[in-house]
């Protein structure tokens, strides 16, 4: 009933000259689809597999570790080397670079705590397990469980912070210490929630029937949003408040890393997940019920997983170039052009393809870009982390 009234109100608004120039006509069905992209922000993320998730002492330990290069093999690379606060928790590069050049783009950490698969191929099923990978990877930080454990034991401040977070001195075996360091790092990363945006204000106004507030959202942005949830069907995968369904898709991006070598994407990710001692079926899952391992227990490996990569969330999308798993598109405009012109030869579908060349006009492309940029907002400055043991 409220939505019907809103539709009426918006139609009435069209009759008024001032508002007629500012607010498009939104059907009840469209309002429902727009509403699915909020509210924002969601409640704080909490991971039952991580005993220090959402705990202040775990978060502060994780924040200190995040910028500590001593976690790396040569003492020169920290998490913050690639996930830079000033670059929206990414690095601004097309492809990541740790101790060596990498084959995939460094993803932004905004809203990462709300995911259920991690990394471009979903090779990890928890944020803490995913955090272990760059610490150990020889091309990224080239650390080791022994090095992490020694740091936590020997650094007085970190040892104190560890004891506050985990309720015991850092005296476990090296692998357990690595896992706990990663859990603290994950607790910190899960606090990185992107700010509200112009889109959120419009969405809330639309849902509340506040036509004056809704009219502050630009017409181009509104037309782009209509395309996004309508003809272009972007919301089939970019669904929900984070603009991702958290799963994987093949959208026609090349998967050759170099001549003769491919990135198998999700197909390889599922294999790596199964082989990992840190997955949620293993002994480091703090959720004794095992309920949080349902996806891991039931995930299915399909031939179609080859060349699929994680559907990224779109909040802050305009601030975190480059794009796609391999950073092959430099701008938001390039991304929209890709979807407008993608070749059907590059896509595999037995039925009606989810991704098809949209054939957008210049005006439509511009509208879609305007809408995507309305998902950006400048974050407030972060205070320095509090001391580990005041």
């Amino acid at each position: 009933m409220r939505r019907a009234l809103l539709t009426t109100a918006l139609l009435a608004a069209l009759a008024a000259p001032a508002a007629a120039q500012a607010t498009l006509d939104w059907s009840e069905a469209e309002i429902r689809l727009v509403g699915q992209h909020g509210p924002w922000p969601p409640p704080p993320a909490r991971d039952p597999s991580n005993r220090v998730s959402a705990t202040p002492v775990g978060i502060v330990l994780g924040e200190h570790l995040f910028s500590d290069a001593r976690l790396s093999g040569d003492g020169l690379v920290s998490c913050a080397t690639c996930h830079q606060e000033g670059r929206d928790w990414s690095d601004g590069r097309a492809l990541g670079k740790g101790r060596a050049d990498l084959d995939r783009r460094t993803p932004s950490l905004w809203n990462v705590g709300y995911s259920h698969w991690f990394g471009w191929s979903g090779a990890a099923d928890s944020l803490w397990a995913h955090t272990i990978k760059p610490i150990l990877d020889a091309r990224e930080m080239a650390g080791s469980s022994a090095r992490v454990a020694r740091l936590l034991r020997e650094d007085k401040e970190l040892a104190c912070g560890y004891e506050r977070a985990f309720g015991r001195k850092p005296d476990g075996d090296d692998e357990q210490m690595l896992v706990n360091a990663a859990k603290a790092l994950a607790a910190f990363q899960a606090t990185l929630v992107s700010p509200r945006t112009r889109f959120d204000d419009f969405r809330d106004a639309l849902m509340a029937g506040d036509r004056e507030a809704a009219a502050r959202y630009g017409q181009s942005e509104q037309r782009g949003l209509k395309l996004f949830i309508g003809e272009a069907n972007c919301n089939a995968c970019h669904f929900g408040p984070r603009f991702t369904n958290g799963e994987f898709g093949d959208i026609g991006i090349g998967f050759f890393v170099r001549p003769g070598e491919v990135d198998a994407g999700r197909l390889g990710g599922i294999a790596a997940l199964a082989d990992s001692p840190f997955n949620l079926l293993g002994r480091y899952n703090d959720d004794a019920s095992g309920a949080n391992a349902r996806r891991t227990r039931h995930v299915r490996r399909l031939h179609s997983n080859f060349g699929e990569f994680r559907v990224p969330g779109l909040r802050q999308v305009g601030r975190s170039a480059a794009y796609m798993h391999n950073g092959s598109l430099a701008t938001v405009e390039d991304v929209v052009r890709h979807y407008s012109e993608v070749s059907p030869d590059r896509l595999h579908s037995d039925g009606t393809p989810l991704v098809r060349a949209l054939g957008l006009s210049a005006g439509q492309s511009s509208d879609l870009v305007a809408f995507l940029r309305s998902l950006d907002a400048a974050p407030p400055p972060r205070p320095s982390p509090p001391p580990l043991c005041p």
Partner: protein
Amino acid sequence: MRLLAALVAFFVTGPAWAGCPLDLGRGAGLVIFSDHYMIAFRPDPLRIEVGEPFALVFNVCTKSGTAGELVAVDAQMPEHKHAMNYHPSIVAKGDGRFRAEGLVFHMAGHWEISIDVRAGEEIERLTHDFYIK
């Protein structure tokens, strides 16, 4: 309306199904038929959300009164011809009751669920359509 039609069909088909309990704990849920089987089932939780794992709770009955077995449950989007990214597991709860765990509809739209049952050698497939918004 679909449930009402199924229940009407159930009662006019005669007493053969009379011993089949429809109660799945929170009411009957959905009921589908074939010549040989009647299956009552409901999602758990009752509302299926895009991208969220859910289970299906089943009660499998046969017209002959012999024990029916739930062999497999799967789902696909017929329009796009793609399956779920997850493979459900089935646990028998006794007395024709089963629980299929680990289903996820990762997109909104039309999903066709397939339910494979048997009460002997041959497997029969029944289907049901879900429309997820």
